């Protein structure tokens, strides 16, 4: 077991949470991520393999599927991101690579992204101050890309109008966090 201590995207040893009226923004560092891209002509194989491997089907365009331990969301044509608890599944990419074999290209994406969860009755109002995403219209278990303060992000809606996860490139975590908090503060 290695002895190197991880830090969160915001640079702390523990995750940061910020509270505002009707809105809570929490840093979520304890998630492992891996991208899965079906190779040419074998998308069917990838779809068939998934349920046994990760316990869920790979979702349709713009959708999120959640199982007991794994969540998968669509990020492109024949491309998905798989997410699981970091400490239990730090070797997620390795597990998926082994499981999908030559049917899919798998990369570790865990630290490519910083995840912030936003929850509360003012989440939609906050998104209205940030990006062109129609957060009001997003249904539960859907995902979309959007540019938030010049950052290419993935936004997952886990509970319509109430709970979302925002993934941004990890190196810009502080900038995104600042943007989220500033927008939250500016709401009347």
């Amino acid at each position, binding site marked *: 077991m*290695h002895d*190197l201590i991880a830090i969160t995207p915001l640079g702390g040893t523990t995750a940061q949470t910020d509270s505002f009226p009707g809105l809570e923004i929490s840093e979520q560092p304890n998630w492992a991520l891996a991208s899965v891209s079906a190779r*040419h002509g074998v998308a069917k194989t990838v779809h068939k393999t998934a349920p046994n491997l990760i316990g869920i089907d790979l979702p349709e365009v713009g959708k999120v599927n959640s199982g007991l331990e794994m969540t998968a969301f669509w990020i492109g044509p024949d491309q998905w991101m798989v997410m699981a608890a970091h400490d239990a599944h730090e070797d997620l990419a390795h597990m998926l690579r082994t499981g999908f074999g030559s049917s899919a290209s798998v990369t*570790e994406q*865990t*630290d490519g992204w910083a995840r912030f969860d936003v929850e509360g009755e003012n989440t939609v109002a906050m998104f209205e101050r*940030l*990006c062109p995403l129609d957060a*009001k219209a997003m249904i539960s278990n859907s995902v979309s890309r959007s540019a938030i303060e010049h950052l290419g992000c993935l936004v997952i809606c886990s509970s319509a109008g109430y709970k979302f996860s925002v993934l941004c490139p990890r190196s810009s975590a502080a900038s995104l966090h600042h943007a989220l908090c500033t927008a939250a503060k*500016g709401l009347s």
Partner: protein
Amino acid sequence: MKQINRLAGGQVDQTKTLNFHFDGAAYRGHPGDTLASALLANGVRLMGRSFKYHRPRGVLSAGSEEPNALVELRGGNRQEPNTRATTVELFDGLTAQSQNRWPSLTFDAMEINDKFSNFLTAGFYYKTFMWPAAFWEKVYEPIIRKAAGLGSLSQQDDPDCYDKGFLHCDLLIIGAGPAGLAAALTAGNAGAQVIVADEDFAFGGRLNAETITVGDQSGADWAAQTAAELATMPNVRLMSRTTVIGAFDHGIYGAVERVSDHVAVPDTGKPRQILWRIYTQRTLLCTGALDRPIAFENNDRPGIMLASAMRSYANRWAVTPDQQVAVFTNHDDGHRTATDMLAKGVNVAAVIDTRENAPRIADCELIAGAQVIDAQGRLGLKGIRLRTQDGRERVIRCGALGVSGGWNPNVHMTCHQRGRPVWNERLAAFCPGADLPRGMLVAGAAQGDFSTAAALAKGAAAAAAALSDIGIIASVPSQPETEDGDVNITPFWYVKSGSGRAWLDQQNDVTVKDIKLAHQENFRSVEHLKRYTTLGMATDQGKTSNMGGLAVMAELTGKSIPETGTTIFRPPYTPVAIGTFAGRSTGADFRPTRLTPSHKWAAEQGAAFVEVGMWLRAQWFPQAGETHWRQSVDREVLATRKSVGVCDVTTLGKIDVQGSDAATFLNKIYCNGFAKLAVGKTRYGLMLREDGIAMDDGTTARLGEDHFVMTTTTANAVGVYRHMEFARQCLWPDLDVQLISTTEAWAQYAVAGPNSRNLLRKIIDPAFDISNEAFPFMACSEITVCGGLRARLFRISFSGELAFEIAVPTRYGDALMRRLMVAGEEFDVVPYGTEALGVMRIEKGHAAGNELNGTTSAQNLGMGRMVSKKKDSIGSTLSEREGLNQPDMLMFVGFKPVDSNAKVTAGAHLMAKDAVANAANDQGYITSAAYSPCLGSSIGIGFLKNGGDRKGEIIRAVSPLTGTDIQIEVVSAHFIDPEGERLRA
């Protein structure tokens, strides 16, 4: 101070009093007042001075079309110039100053301009300020700059913050007058997502200004009740104080919401204004109509205003501009002002109507077939002179005159995408044309339906039509009973008598005489008329003047008004503060910052940081006692080359390339061969643009048969990724290859120097042999470190020393850097920054961004032989063109100063020793330069014509910008370890 012109009633709360200051004098008003209405209530008619002639001016309108009553609102660093007093909501403690006058509003020394008006007519600056030529810069320009403009800036930073916002809806309704409100009810009840925006703080439009009843209520009550009903609908968003500023492409509208301008100071953290971007399926423009004036001599005296504004002040704000007023008009609706003023107990001296057969509507004297030919009272209207039908003149005493030449449908936004309005003879006005922005409909007075009944009915119908278009069925209810009057108008634009000036554009001081001058000088097209006279070019975009100006030109040219045409209205509808456009993107937040995995640690060390694109990178790590950056950088270079140094190189792009055709794909992207790269090996790759020019370089590691990791330069990471995705999706979609960026996912450090292997051995787990035999130069492997953490190791060197790059998942990057520093203590390990990184790669002669500058080819870089002829790759064909293969072409070489104390400057151009330094003798240029602590002098690298054959030659480096002119020797670019022995140790 008593509000001498306050009336009873209105929609102001006369039970509460607000205190405010204008030009230092204290006044009182009420909630619901605007600054303009409160000033009028206090008997203040003089509110500004005009742009060119500094003529005393009063308020002309009661809305955002106001040209005259422009004030500097608030003070200190929140001072805002050119604010229309007609739209400022009065609050307690408000302060405002008039503009464009010195020393005061009542005595303005610059009014002397008015005496010289003959020399300051339209286009005067095309005929003056030319002689003597020397005077322009020193005399004329400073004077003009001082005199130009209206308001002044505080010159201090804007302390307020502004938000950007994004909204989506099925139907955007612009304007909440009768048409807009009826439309909103229809659409809201149909369940559509509706946004209703109005620039006013109260919904209702003209209903708040008129005495019209709707059903059994006053129009104002109906509007308030309707707004309240709409507010209960969750699918309707009401936005008051929100001006839709423009109709932009793709059905996107811009809107500015004034969140905090009606309070003294915004709450902490709350924006002053929000710039909303509204994505809408359909839009209904219900912007109503604007009253237009009639021009006559001295028609700009304070107290002369639009007739509709006069009754707005009386009905909505319980204010009369004077106790004795008159009305001048050419249509029936103008008489309504007289009726309403009389009802409020104001003396109406007469209604002067240009039409001989004008009907008698108001209960006061009617002077039909007459024209007002002059106005008296420089600082405030005292009386008017008119000429009656029989040619006689009469003087009528009055302190205010309401003028109306008819209503102009407010078509502004229908023109934002180059649509032109069409002339309506019956209304004597322009109405929306056929070419509307996509998805826009128009209803109400904006469409030319001036009656309230028509506005309600057409507003509702248009909403239903708009929704039907997008598959939402709306039922159109019957509307309450209300007035349905006809339009009776005889066009009349200006009074043709008097030698004096009749004012058309009051903000830019453009007169009827100016139009005549433009015509005389042959600037007759409406576009030339506008630019030559500046008619319609002020902050009000000619809302109350364009029509008059083009009507005069039409008459002069003998064309009809529709033949003369209109110019194009452009966004923004009303002025927008630059801060509002900026939103939160100001100062440090202008763009995101990317932090490296070792940033926190580097900051603890007191590193100096440099911006590299959006990244912050440690530039050098000063130690105690070091006062100049050269001390730090020289030390870092020497220490690394002597023992070992560590540098964070996470910022270089990392692209994961996988798939059964990954090697084939890379073979087409890179000009050199990659198909046969062995697993466990890394190779330098050069990629060309289609035209054979070098685009980017890096190293690509083959971690598996169908798995590569490519690095790019920091600056081009995004560009190269885009390029590769384009190639993958569009050029060769049949190749089985998948890409994804992993720049962020891995912390990567260069560990360089003779002791780099020794240091790494202390952290790499013992199962992995990194001896020179097991892990030679350019090897790569997945490994583990520190007891099992997954990592990647690459034996590559930018510095020219024995070196490696080690990567771990980013969350462990901070810990790894700290571990390397501790483990490296015994080797005197130093952290090094981008400066030392740059010095070392220049010493080694490695090309980087400065050399791959978009004009250099592989041949220029000395890599001509890398471009494989055995396979096709992007750029390989055109790299063989004649232009890129000239015998004396630029070649990559190094330069050493002859005088070892001289400084080699990047950007310097190369001349022969005795040549005159000019473009004709230019032989190349220096791309990168640095002080080399290893060589003890400044060195440079760059491109010299036929440089490969000229080593040893003495030439000159010349840079007129920096005053450089030194002798240099042409040498190999590889100053350090040219045989590469250290690399392969």
